[in-house]
């Protein structure tokens, strides 16, 4: 099946899309599917940044399109592809188009970019002409052959394509400069005739790669086209080629044409219209002069754009009465599923969410912490303690509470290289692991025996006090159960050699907390245990856990439920992990700077005690 010389594309035409234009590619495929093409019109994508595959919808199914980084690679794999839809920017449109033209199998290039320099446009145009190839554009949306092939975003939405009956050929060949007006013309033509066979927008630049006349002559040669419709524009002299062709009889089909920009005669000469080429430099280039010349040469020219559609209707009805056009047969068209995003924005579908988030929101201009914009968090100088209040509790906590949290973070930040977390992290770092891996290996040691005492102490002391146990009863109960009271006892520190950190925390609480009930209870317990043994003091873990609950009781933004949550979900281990991460990262960086080698534990430090094997 070869195309006729007057055709740029048919139902079998395939294209490369240059540029990773996922929406345009999907639109082309949706159009294909609507037209019941057997193969997608996009054969491959050329994406200078990445080769591979790209997933697209083909109706309800998903299919894969190959993606290449260069035109030659794509062309080598797909020798039958004749079209390049070039979405390259104005900076690279020239180079990519020249490269595409140089490839023998490529016959047509559509250039979408706006702002291509005039000299480049002229070189591209002349090169294409010399090679008997076609350029559509620059500065255009492209064009479309009804029921066959669509360039990029031409004709907009599927609804519009259906509305303008672009899924099957009609009897009008349309060409305009303006890409924006192409879609409007599809609408006007569909409302006043059987619709278009083909519609092309050559672009609003001064030097388009192909001009109005090129396409009009194709329409003249195409037996499917009964009516030629065209929108010209003020500026340039292209329309006089049409005038000549009319006079010479090279255009025999009825031509409905209107040259826009008639207002330029009453506007100051210095107004530049939206299109770069739309400016008359001589009287000949004015819209009025062109409309007059076209009318005299025999074209059907309305009095104003307002009656452009009426003229098409008149011509169409005339031809129909003469039996020169057949009434188009309406095919049954497949339904294109609506994209979820569109349906959702129109409120047509709903979907249950899989996840809920109640603490932060990154969708707007600025991230929100518990509803508070980050800039406000900074303005209010909320600090780390305040941010923890927002993100862990969804509450704004008072400054004294925030400061206590920061005090705790500082206190737990590090405890030397020998403790589990630091040691693990150091060993991992020495093994050449990256910062995050080494940090993770350190954090993984935090649990019931290491760091976890904060949570346990808070839970146990609260349970004991809430259930009405006297300190004596509590100590006795734990002893008979054979459990060490969490938060009590220290390896070195004792009543006579108190822990400075504990003194600091207690001092802060006495000064700033409204209530220290649980602390007082714990200190009574300590009185009993230290009487037995000097080092059974309230240790720093116990102190933090207990004081955190006192903090919550002192703070009216928290209620009992919040306190229960803290214990139930292990918030306080989080406090330890967060603070200690500072130290762990420090140890890892220390090892990195020291360029420490792999650590191997000395064998003489391990007691090898294996069972005897027979």
């Amino acid at each position, binding site marked *: 099946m070869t195309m006729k010389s007057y055709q740029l594309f048919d139902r079998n035409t395939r294209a490369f899309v240059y540029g990773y234009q996922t929406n345009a590619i999907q639109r082309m495929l949706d159009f294909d599917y609507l037209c019941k093409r057997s193969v997608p019109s996009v054969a491959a994508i050329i994406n200078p940044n990445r080769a591979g595959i790209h997933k697209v919808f083909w109706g309800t199914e998903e299919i894969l399109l190959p993606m290449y980084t260069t035109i030659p690679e794509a062309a080598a794999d797909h020798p039958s592809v004749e079209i390049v839809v070039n979405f390259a920017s104005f900076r690279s449109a020239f180079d990519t188009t020249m490269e595409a033209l140089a490839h023998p199998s490529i016959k047509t290039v559509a250039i979408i970019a706006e702002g291509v320099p005039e000299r480049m446009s002229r070189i591209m145009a002349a090169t294409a002409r010399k090679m008997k190839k076609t350029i559509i554009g620059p500065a255009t949306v492209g064009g479309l052959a009804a029921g066959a092939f669509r360039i990029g*975003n031409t004709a907009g939405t599927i609804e519009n394509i259906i509305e303008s009956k672009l899924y099957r050929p009609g009897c009008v060949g349309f060409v305009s400069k303006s890409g924006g007006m192409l879609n409007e013309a599809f609408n006007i033509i569909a409302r006043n005739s059987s619709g278009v066979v083909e519609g092309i927008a050559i672009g609003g630049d001064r030097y388009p790669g192909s001009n109005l006349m090129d396409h009009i002559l194709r329409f003249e040669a195409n037996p499917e086209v009964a009516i030629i419709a065209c929108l010209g*524009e003020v500026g340039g002299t292209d329309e006089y080629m049409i005038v000549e062709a009319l006079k010479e009889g090279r255009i025999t089909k009825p031509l409905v044409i209107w040259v826009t*920009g008639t207002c330029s005669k009453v506007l100051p000469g210095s107004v530049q219209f939206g299109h770069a080429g739309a400016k008359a430099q001589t009287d000949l280039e004015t819209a009025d002069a062109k409309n007059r010349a076209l009318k005299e040469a025999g074209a059907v020219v309305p009095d104003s754009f*307002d009656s452009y559609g009426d003229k098409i209707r008149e011509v169409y009805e005339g031809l129909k009465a003469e039996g020169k056009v057949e009434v188009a047969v309406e095919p049954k068209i497949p339904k294109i599923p609506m994209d979820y995003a569109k349906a959702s924005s*129109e409120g047509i579908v709903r979907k249950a969410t899989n996840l809920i988030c109640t603490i932060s929101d990154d969708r707007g201009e600025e991230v929100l912490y518990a509803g508070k914009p980050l800039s406000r968090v900074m303005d209010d100088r909320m600090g780390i303690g305040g941010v923890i209040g927002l993100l862990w509790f969804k509450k704004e906590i008072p400054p004294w509470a925030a400061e206590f949290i920061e005090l705790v973070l500082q206190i737990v930040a590090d405890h030397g290289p020998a403790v589990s977390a630091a040691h693990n992290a150091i060993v991992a770092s020495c093994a050449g692991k990256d910062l995050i891996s080494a940090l993770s290996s350190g954090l993984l040691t935090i649990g019931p025996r290491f760091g976890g005492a904060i949570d346990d102490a808070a839970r146990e002391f609260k349970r004991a006090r809430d259930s009405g146990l006297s300190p004596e009863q509590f100590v006795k109960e734990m002893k008979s159960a054979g459990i060490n009271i969490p938060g009590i006892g220290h390896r070195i520190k004792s009543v006579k050699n108190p822990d400075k950190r504990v003194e600091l925390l207690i001092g802060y609480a006495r000064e700033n907390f409204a209530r220290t009930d649980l602390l007082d209870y714990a200190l009574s317990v300590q009185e009993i245990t230290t009487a037995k043994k000097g080092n059974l003091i309230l240790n720093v873990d116990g102190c933090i856990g207990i004081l955190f609950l006192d903090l919550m009781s002192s703070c009216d933004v928290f209620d009992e439920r919040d306190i229960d949550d803290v214990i139930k979900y292990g918030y306080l281990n989080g406090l330890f992990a967060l603070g200690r991460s500072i130290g762990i990262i420090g140890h890892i960086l220390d090892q990195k700077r020291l360029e420490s080698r792999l650590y191997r534990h000395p064998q003489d430090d391990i007691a090898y005690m294996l069972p005897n094997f027979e």
Partner: protein
Amino acid sequence: MAQRGIREYDAKKMLAERLPDYVDDFDYDGQIVLVTPETDLEVVAVENPWVKKKRLVVKPDQLFGKRGAYGLILLDATWDEAKGYIEEKMGKETLVGTIVGPLTHFLMEPFVPHDRDEELYVAIKSDYGGDVIYFSPKGGVNIEANWDQVTEIPVPILAKVEDIDLESKLPAKLGERRKPIADFIRGLYQLYQDLGFAYLEINPFVFHQGKIIPLDLVARLDDAEAFWQRKSWKGLEFPEPFGRALTEEEAHIKEIDSRTGASLKLTILNPEGRVWTMVAGGGASVIYADTICDLGFAGELANYGEYSGDPSTEDTYEYTKTILDLMTREKDPQGRTKYLLIGGGIANFTDVAKTFKGVVMALEDYRERLRNTGVEIFVRRGGPNYEEGLRIMRQLGERLGVPIHVYGPETHMTRIVSMALGGEK
């Protein structure tokens, strides 16, 4: 993006600085001064000692021609005369052709005494298939009348000027000057091609003490080349045409336009006009203006403008506000209705709901002023999400308190023009 005129001053400076790269013995020195309202003439005299030593030429440099015919060229003047001339004319509203505007920029250069018949003409124009070099030994003000003397040398777009024997194509009667003129023209063409020119006319240039001196020059550049010419064009500005200083509002829109990927254009035609347009698309915007003029309301057309290329909600909000602010400053003195036409074709990919959201926000901001000014609004648009866009417009109508008529693709694009204005006829 389009062809834009540049000042004769800038063009001559480019020639002085860059043409020697192309023409071996071109040594025009570019002794030339641009005087603006900010220029201190005493400083000019200090920095350019030649102004006090040489006889001078002074002429306005504001993108209009026929300066001799308008009596706006001072020839063969002393420094004091030149100064007096500039001080007298600077800022003065002056009629040039049909346009009145203030003179703000003057070019001052040494006066080159010569005879009329020594004046030579060269121009380079661009066309679809290539460029054309025009040369005439009979340059000067009567070039049009003597057009039969002009030699046309086409340079096809895919050809190289180096491959064209220019010398043999120039009139033989130039004698020994034929070669230097051919070299000059060749270099000028190469500069034209390399530096993003779209039009260049030197009329006249003369030989003075054996050197080629451009006396009068007109140039346009293709502003789409800005990306490639950022070094060559450094500091170059594209002045507004004579008599068309940008209004504050136009400058504001131009500024927004320059920093977004979308296109936003605004030209105020008649701030007292009653018909204001806000049309999407370069093609459609012209057609709306046409239709308004076709119906006989050219005198009432207040602005030309367009927005396209999927502008953001914020962009359309700013754009609409700018127009609303202008149109609601004064009531029509005769108490007649003002019309706002929010028009457009069927968009290919611009999200109509998104752009209209910005328009609606702006209309709400101006609710009081719209009511007080007596505005009636007509809307016509299609394209992606247009149903939603039209819906929010209709909804707005209920609370805005000014009449809004909203139509979609089922209504012919320009029909809202006759709906709005037809009744007045």
